[in-house]
């Protein structure tokens, strides 16, 4: 790959004399990585693991889209298709989206951002990765031994009584991985409370840290419930417990309550850290203090709390009480308020800012648009009467992909590009990065926007055959998925290239504010800072440039 496609400025490049010891050259043996308690190395271990799962989940998505290219079921049988979308969902949600930003970027950055040497419990941090890996191995084994066909939601009584696939193996994998998430959240909460540098008050914390604090609350409070619910499926399947089976006095809807009590807030586990990334990127590339710091900070907490009060909107058509559905519908509208506050505040931050369109900013701007579409269509689905019409159609599929892919993955890509020079000490080819951001944006819309239409027209999700009149929209969607796939492969290539051949990055190539940029080298030293930093200014204290003129 030629470096001629981008020209880093002098301030982005490191001095040639920069050859100091850092966390990457602190040890080269396998043991130094596999037994490390350094939060930065553990973040790299997570980065490698979740990237593998991302492409595994992506492979299932490719097969799903290929099957849907034609109305007939000509690539695979119905049972195989069931397994494809189930494994796509399980891998992407439990093994990529939930750990992605917290376990990689959060792990790497939170101690750096608050001026600490490490997380509060470094060994528990490593344990989290091992637990995640063991859970991943169980799930991978389930795939190898034939997969599972329950949908990622494990709805009873199918999962607990009727399915003949590897429900137990996957349930064990998800059960184990839940503990990894709980321990990471616990570690973040204690670290943020106890390990802030002198002068780093709560209202000087970067908004990325606020977002992770809110996320951690959900991880600690919600994950045990889904873990227990999945364990109950195992017990009912193996020993005939009458928890969910009506014949034994159980209630199938009880599982949906337990599952969504976690799994709706889990959407916020995916999106809140992404919102933290966007706050950092927008301020840096607008070179302007964030608009309404405290509103953005408290809206993260509000989303975390309100997110626990809306789970019943997944059950409007499942036989849930109409009265309960009414309450859940109203509460669902409420959760839109803090989300909207963030979007308005980011937009206001851009106003009269010195905006530059580097790759992280392109991803961040993409996030704002896509998340807004995803959020607004969520209001459609939170409305009782509309939900009855579009429930379990491709409209729902499009909606949550706009949140999870258009929101969470765009934010993850924004963050990865923004902090890549800090993490690796190398620059990537900016031209290719901007190109891939545009390819992903276009590919994403082409994949998922037709799904809103085909869903509204009545195409149900989770079927491998469909009426011929839906083919054009499905072909468009599959074509978009191809572009999207290419868009994700390009960064994989240039990031890998930059590890060895990318120009060395300076400590602060973006001219950003924050301890990780201003007080730590690129890549940071083993203990982050030469001496504990003392914080004397607010977050995002950029020099007033355009907006005061």
């Amino acid at each position, binding site marked *: 790959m030629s470096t001629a496609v981008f020209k880093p400025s002098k301030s982005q490049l490191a001095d040639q004399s920069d050859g100091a010891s850092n966390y990457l050259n602190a040890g080269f043996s396998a043991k130094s990585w596999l037994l490390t308690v350094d939060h930065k190395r553990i973040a790299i271990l997570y980065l490698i693991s979740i990237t593998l799962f991302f492409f595994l989940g992506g492979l299932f998505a490719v097969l799903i889209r290929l099957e849907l290219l034609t109305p007939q079921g000509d690539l695979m049988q119905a049972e195989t298709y069931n397994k494809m979308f189930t494994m796509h969902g399980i891998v992407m949600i439990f093994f990529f989206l939930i750990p992605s930003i917290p376990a990689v970027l959060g792990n790497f950055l939170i101690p750096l951002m608050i001026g600490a040497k490490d997380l509060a419990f470094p060994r528990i941090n490593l344990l989290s990765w091992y637990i995640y890996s063991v859970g991943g191995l169980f799930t991978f084994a389930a795939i190898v031994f034939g997969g599972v066909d329950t949908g990622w939601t494990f709805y009873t009584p199918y999962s607990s009584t009727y399915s003949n696939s590897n429900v137990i193996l996957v349930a064990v994998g998800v059960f184990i991985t839940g503990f990894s998430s709980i321990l990471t959240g616990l570690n973040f909460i204690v670290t943020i409370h106890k390990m802030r540098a002198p002068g780093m008050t709560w209202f000087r914390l970067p908004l990325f840290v606020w977002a992770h604090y809110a996320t951690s609350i959900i991880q600690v409070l919600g994950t045990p419930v889904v873990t227990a619910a999945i364990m109950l499926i195992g017990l009912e399947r193996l020993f005939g417990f009458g928890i969910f089976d009506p014949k034994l006095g159980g209630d199938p809807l009880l599982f949906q309550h337990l599952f969504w009590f976690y799994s709706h807030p889990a959407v916020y586990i995916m999106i809140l850290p992404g919102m933290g990334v966007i706050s950092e990127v927008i301020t840096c590339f607008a070179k302007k203090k964030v608009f309404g710091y405290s509103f953005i900070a408290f809206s993260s907490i509000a989303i975390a709390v309100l997110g626990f009060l809306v789970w*019943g909107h997944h059950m409007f058509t499942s*036989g849930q009480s*109409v009265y309960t559905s009414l309450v859940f519908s109203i509460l669902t509208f409420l959760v839109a308020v803090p989300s909207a506050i963030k979007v308005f505040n980011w937009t206001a931050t851009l106003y009269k800012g010195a905006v530059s369109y580097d790759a992280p900013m392109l991803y961040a701007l993409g996030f704002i648009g896509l998340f807004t579409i995803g959020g607004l269509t969520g209001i459609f689905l939170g409305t009782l009467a509309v939900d009855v019409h579009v429930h379990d159609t491709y409209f729902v599929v499009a909606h949550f992909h706009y949140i999870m892919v258009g929101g969470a993955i765009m934010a993850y890509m924004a963050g990865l590009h923004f902090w890549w020079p800090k993490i690796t000490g190398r620059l990537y080819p900016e031209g290719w990065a901007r190109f891939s951001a545009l390819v992903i944006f276009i590919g994403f819309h082409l994949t998922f926007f037709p799904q809103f239409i085909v869903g509204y027209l009545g195409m149900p999700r989770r079927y491998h055959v469909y009426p011929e009149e839906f083919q054009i929209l499905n072909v468009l969607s599959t074509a978009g998925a191809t572009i999207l796939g290419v868009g994700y492969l390009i960064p994989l290539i240039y990031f890998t290239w930059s590890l060895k051949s990318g120009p060395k990055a300076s400590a602060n190539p973006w001219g950003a504010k924050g301890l990780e940029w201003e007080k730590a080298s690129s890549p940071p030293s083993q203990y982050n800072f030469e001496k504990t930093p003392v914080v004397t200014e607010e977050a995002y204290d950029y020099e007033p440039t355009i907006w005061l003129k």
Partner: protein
Amino acid sequence: MSQHIVPMRVYFVIFFSLLILTAVTVWVAFFDLGAVNDAVALGIATTKAMLVILYFMHVRYSSKLTWIFAATGFLFLIILLAFTLSDVLTRDWIPVSAGWGGGAQ
């Protein structure tokens, strides 16, 4: 961080209290108390959980911040139970439609 030293005697008292409450759970299961069956069983279980949290997990001797986090866990448990029960208890308030042919049952 200051550590509160708990006398061994306290641990033994709590441990035997838990054993006794377990025996009470089994004993009470042999009596049909009608509507309060569940309430009694849950009451004993909650008491046991409180003893474990307060003494074995040292929450009783911990900071106010720890109390807040422990209480938050209970608050969210109440949210889970309250909304779930609101569904279960009001499901039959509106009769379920029998479909196109039947009308309301």
